[in-house]
C-alpha cells in the first residue's frame, strides 16, 4: 500500500519537475526569441525599408515587406552621395591605420613581453592608465597641433597616430607573446638569429591569432570613426563614408527621403557585416579580451 503511494507520489513529483522544466525552457526560449527580435528588428527594417517606395516608409502601423521592390533607391541615393570617393577615402585611412596599428603594436608588445629593462613595469602601468584618459581632454591640443602643422584637411591626423601604438592592442598582443614558450626564442638565438629576425620570422608568424584580432579592432575603429573625420576633414572630396552618410541625411531637403537614407546606411553597414560574418570568432575574441583577460 504505502509502496504504491510513494511510487505515485514520486510519479507526481516527477511529472511536476518535468512540467516546471518544460515551462522553464519555453520561458527561456521565449525570452531569447524576444531579445533577438529586439536586437535585429531595427537592422531588418533598415534593410527592408531601403527597398520600399517612400510613401510606404511612413505608414503606421509599421510595414515590414516592400509593396514594390525599389532597388532604384540605391542608385538615387548615389546621385547625392559620392559613394565612390568616400569609400576610397575610408579604405585608404583604414588600410594605412591597420598597417600602422599592427606594425607598432606587435613591436611594442614584444618589447614589453620579452625584454627586461629598467622601469618596464612602471611604463606598462602608464600604458594601461592611458586607456582611462578621456578623448575629450586630448581633443583640443591635438587639433590645435595639427592645425599648426597644416594637417587639417589631410588624412594624416587619422592615420599617423596609429603608427605609435594603441594601448589596448599592445596589451592584447603582449598577453599573447607572454604565452609563447621561451625555448623557441632561445633556439633561434643559439642559431644566431638577430633580435629583429627573431621578431619578424619567429614571433610574428606565431602571433597571427592576436594580429587578426588587432586587425579587426583597427578596421572597425577606422571604418566607424565619426568624430575624427568630422573635425579634420572639411573638404567634401576627403570625406569618409561616415561623414558622407551623415552629410547625406542632413542635406537640406533630403530630411524626408527615408528610403534612400536607409539605402545609404545599408551601403555603409554591409562591408562591416561581411567582415563580421567572415571573422565572427575573432570579433567575439576581441570583445572578450577587452573585458576580462589578464
Amino acid at each position, binding site marked *: 500500500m504505502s509502496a504504491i503511494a510513494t511510487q505515485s507520489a514520486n510519479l507526481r513529483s516527477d511529472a511536476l519537475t518535468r512540467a516546471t522544466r518544460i515551462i522553464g525552457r519555453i520561458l527561456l526560449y521565449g525570452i531569447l526569441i524576444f531579445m533577438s527580435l*529586439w536586437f535585429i528588428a531595427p537592422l531588418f527594417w533598415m534593410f527592408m525599408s531601403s527597398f520600399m517606395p517612400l510613401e510606404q516608409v511612413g505608414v503606421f502601423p509599421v510595414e515590414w515587406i516592400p509593396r514594390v521592390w525599389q532597388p532604384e533607391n540605391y542608385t538615387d541615393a548615389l546621385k547625392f552621395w559620392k559613394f565612390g570617393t568616400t569609400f576610397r577615402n575610408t579604405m585608404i585611412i583604414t588600410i594605412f591605420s591597420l598597417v600602422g596599428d599592427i606594425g607598432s603594436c606587435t613591436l611594442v608588445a614584444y618589447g614589453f613581453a620579452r625584454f627586461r629593462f629598467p622601469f618596464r*613595469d612602471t611604463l606598462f602601468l602608464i600604458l594601461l592608465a592611458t586607456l582611462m584618459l578621456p578623448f575629450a581632454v586630448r581633443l*583640443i591640443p591635438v587639433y590645435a597641433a595639427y592645425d599648426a602643422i597644416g594637417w587639417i584637411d589631410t588624412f594624416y591626423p587619422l592615420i599617423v597616430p596609429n603608427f605609435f601604438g594603441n594601448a589596448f592592442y599592445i596589451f592584447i598582443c603582449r598577453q599573447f607573446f607572454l604565452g609563447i614558450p621561451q625555448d623557441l626564442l632561445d633556439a633561434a638565438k643559439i642559431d644566431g638569429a638577430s633580435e629583429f629576425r627573431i621578431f619578424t620570422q619567429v614571433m610574428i608568424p606565431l602571433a597571427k591569432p592576436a594580429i587578426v584580432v588587432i586587425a579587426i579592432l583597427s578596421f572597425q575603429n577606422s571604418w566607424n570613426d565619426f568624430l575624427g573625420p568630422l573635425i579634420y576633414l572639411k573638404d567634401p572630396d576627403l570625406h569618409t563614408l561616415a561623414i558622407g552618410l551623415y552629410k547625406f541625411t542632413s542635406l537640406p531637403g533630403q530630411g524626408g527621403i527615408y528610403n534612400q537614407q536607409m539605402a545609404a546606411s545599408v551601403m555603409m553597414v554591409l562591408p562591416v557585416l561581411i567582415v563580421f560574418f567572415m571573422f565572427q570568432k575573432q570579433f567575439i575574441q576581441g570583445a572578450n579580451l577587452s573585458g576580462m583577460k589578464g
Partner: protein
Amino acid sequence: MATAFGSQFSALRGRRRERWSDLSPMRKREAKFGFLFIAPWFIGVLLFALFPFVASFVLSFTKYNIVAPPRWVGAEHYEHIFTDDPLFLKSLRNTAVYVGGSVAIRIVLGFALALLLNTKVRFLGLWRTLFYVPSVVPIVALSIVWLYVLNARAGLLNWFLGFFGISRIRWFADPDFAMLAFLIMSTTWVGVTMVIFLAGLQGIPEEYYDAAKIDGANMVQRLWRVTIPLMTPTIYLNVLINIIGAFQVFTQVFIMTGGAPRDATRTYVLHLFDHAFQYLPPQMGYSSALAWILFMIIFAFTAVIVASSQRWVFYQGGEE
C-alpha cells in the same frame, strides 16, 4: 585587464630598483633592445597623451580661438562654468542620467542574457551572433536607423509599445522622454557586455556548482553565492569601462538631436564640442576647462570604484 592592473601594481611594490650601472653587459644589451622595441609607443605617449593632457590644462586658463595665440585669463573660465553657465549643469545632469541608465542596462541586461545563454541552451552560437550584431554596426548608420525607430508618428518603438496600450510618445520632441530614448537605444550594445560575461561564466568550473548542489544550495543561492562572487572581477572591469565610455557619449546625440529639445539631450561632451567646434569664434580655452572638469569627474569615479573594489571584488586564491 583588471587583474593585470592589480598585478602590475603589486609587481612594482617591494621590488628593488635596478640601477643601470649594476646591469651586466648582456642585460644592458637586452635593455637597449627593449627600449628600442617600445620606442614607438613611448614617443606616441608623449605626443598623443602627455602633451595634450598638459596642454589642455594650460589652455583652460586662456582664451584661445585657434587663429590668434592663446591669451591668459586665469581662472575666468572655471568661474564662468560654475557660476554662469546653466548648460554646464544641465549637460552634466543629462550625462549623469545617461551614465547611470546605460551602465545599469548594459551590466544588468548583459549579465541576465549571459546567464540565460549559459544554461546549456541550444543554438548558443546563433543567439550570441544575433545579440552581438547590432554592436558592430557603424554608429552613424545606427543613429540614422534609430531616428526612425524612435520616430513619433511611424516609428518601430511606438508601434511596439502600442501592443501594450501605450499611446505614441514624441520621443525627441518631449524633454521628459528624449534622454530615455537614448537609454533605450543604448540596449544596442548590450551584446558586447553579454559576450564578455558569457565567456566569464563559461570559465567557472562545473565542480563549484556540483559542490554547492551537494550542500543543498538552490538555484538562487548558487547564483548569489557561487556565480556572482566569481564574476565580480569581470563585473568590476565592465562597470569601469562602461562608466568611462558613457561619460563621453557624443556621436549619436550629435547626429540625432544635437541637444534638442530645449537642451534635454545636451550631453557634456556635446556641450564641450560645441564650444570648440561649432560656436564662432571657437572657444577652445573654455572647452579645455570643460574637458578638464570632465577628466576630474571621471578620475574621481574611477578612483572610488577602484578603491571600493577591494571590498566587493573577489579574486580566486592563487590567481595573479
